[in-house]
């Protein structure tokens, strides 16, 4: 089944066609003919049990992995590991993971500046963007603090800032609040939704938390490597 949003408003930013993916030489089938579309500025939650293929789908959209069969487009450009992968990672997509995956020993600001350094962004532009993002995420007073001295929520907000530094069109979030307590989780998620909405970013988020998922524009359920149905459209 193809997961679509049922309306034609907005440009198609994410598109997957008949994706098949397996591991261990085909022994473990993870994606079994998944087709999916998401429009510009939409927030889409991918729900389903562990191992149903949510993370794999995110990885394929981010160019971190290749499908056995099928095709992926991000912002109209075919995702191919051989061509344009760096451009995709530097300018089109941002990743947030369950663990913050920040680099210890560096400050909050330095961690956030890593994507801009990789992309060769002008330092003044990068600092300006960093100021704006930390202001919005309430981290501006922690810019020069080492990561080790931040709380779990602050670290995850830092990871969110880092993912958005290069103004990506798409934010791929793999259980972004999975390691946080309920209250912090809600705060970080509010922030995430607010940021993607104001910046016009398309959000594709894998989550187990139905209460959070229901706050997205769309909720897509996956099971056993397939999309069951577009179970909820706001």
């Amino acid at each position, binding site marked *: 089944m193809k997961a679509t949003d049922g309306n034609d408003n907005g440009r198609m930013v994410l598109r997957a066609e008949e994706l098949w993916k397996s591991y261990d030489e085909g022994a473990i089938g993870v994606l079994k003919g998944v087709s999916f579309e998401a429009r510009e500025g939409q927030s889409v939650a991918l729900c389903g049990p562990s191992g149903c293929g949510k*993370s794999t789908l995110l*990885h394929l959209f*981010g160019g*971190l*992995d290749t499908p056995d069969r099928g095709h992926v487009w991000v912002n109209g450009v075919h995702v191919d590991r051989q061509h344009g992968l*760096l451009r995709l*990672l*530097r300018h089109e997509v941002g*990743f947030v*993971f*369950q*663990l913050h*995956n920040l*680099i*210890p*020993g*560096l400050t909050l600001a*330095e961690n956030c*500046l*890593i*994507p801009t*350094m*990789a*992309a060769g962004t002008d330092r003044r532009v990068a600092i300006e963007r960093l100021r704006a993002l930390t202001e919005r995420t309430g981290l501006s007073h922690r810019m020069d603090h080492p990561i080790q001295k931040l709380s779990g929520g602050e670290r995850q907000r830092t990871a969110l800032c*880092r993912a958005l530094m*290069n103004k990506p069109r798409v934010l791929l979030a793999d259980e972004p609040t999975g390691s946080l307590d309920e209250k912090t989780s809600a705060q970080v998620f509010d922030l995430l939704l607010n940021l993607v909405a104001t910046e016009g970013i398309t959000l594709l988020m894998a989550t187990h938390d139905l209460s959070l998922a229901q706050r997205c524009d769309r909720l897509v359920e996956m099971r056993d490597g397939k999309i069951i149905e577009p179970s909820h459209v706001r």
Partner: protein
Amino acid sequence: MLFLKLILTNLGRHRIRTFISIAGIAFSVAAMLTVVTILQGAIGMFSNILSNDSQIIVFERDVSDLFFSSVPAQAADAITTWPMVAHANPVLFGIVSSAGHPIVTCFGVTPSDARIQKARWIVGDRSSFSENANGVVLGERAAQFLAARVGSSVPIGHASFHVLGILRTSNGFEDGGVFMPLGVAQKFFHKEGLSSVVTVKLRNKDEAAALKTMVKEKYPNLIALEDTEFTHSYSQFKILKATAWAVGGCGLLLGGLGIANTMIMSVFTRIREIAILRVNGFSEGQIAGMIFGESAIVSVLGAVTGLLAGVSVLYALKLIPALDGYVDVTIHPLLLLIVIALALLTGIAGALYPALYAMRIRAVEALRFE
């Protein structure tokens, strides 16, 4: 700056491991610098013995060691009379042992030799050194280790010699040597009528080619070389230099293996971090640059530490009385450049495999195991 901070942060995380790698390179560089400098100094001293007040050295063609060279007295006498020659001095080299001293270098020289005439005599009179004298003159250090005084008898090899005088030179070999009248040395070493070399001073330096041609024509079994030519072509010097560089090279190889080990461990322990950098847009080149940057910093710090340690060791060796005159702490800038370049190359070579491994890390595999 952030790239450098990334590199330094990683080195700082494993300080002991980084320190051991720096120490490995430092020891290698210090060993190379010390061995090469000492041997080059020794070569320089030996060359100075030959070039003392002369520009050309004549010796037997195709001998691998000057101690085995035989130049007939007739040839030495003839060369003295050639028009372009200001003076020519036959010198016979010999090595013997003395009680408690396995190596004593002996120089059989004529009374007119610059080594006798221009040296500073501490005790004795240079006029006492004649062809007929049945005695020897000692370098200052030789006099010390042989516990000899002027007028005493000193055992050298299978014989005993009367000490005529003691002289001081800045050359370690000469200062630790025994000077015999040429005739006495020829008899002592069973080389009557022969010398090892003839050192020649020209009236005009431009006539070197003419002298070399004449030697080749008149004495085909002899060869005449200018001092610099000799230093570059003498096989013993080549062997010494090759040995020094080989010893230093082995040291650097070990240092390189140390760096390789450190960098491999460094990459293995932060596979996930490298994966995150890739996800954040780091190219394979940037990942490799980070690994090479780390090894370059370790190499440079190791090289600088090693240079400081090496120079300190050389000065310390120079202060040891027994080595006085043998250690020349003249460090050529070219040698410094070569040592630093080799240390850097070692670092880069040691980081090749770790960098390749880091470049091939697949972010998706590293991230799958949260």
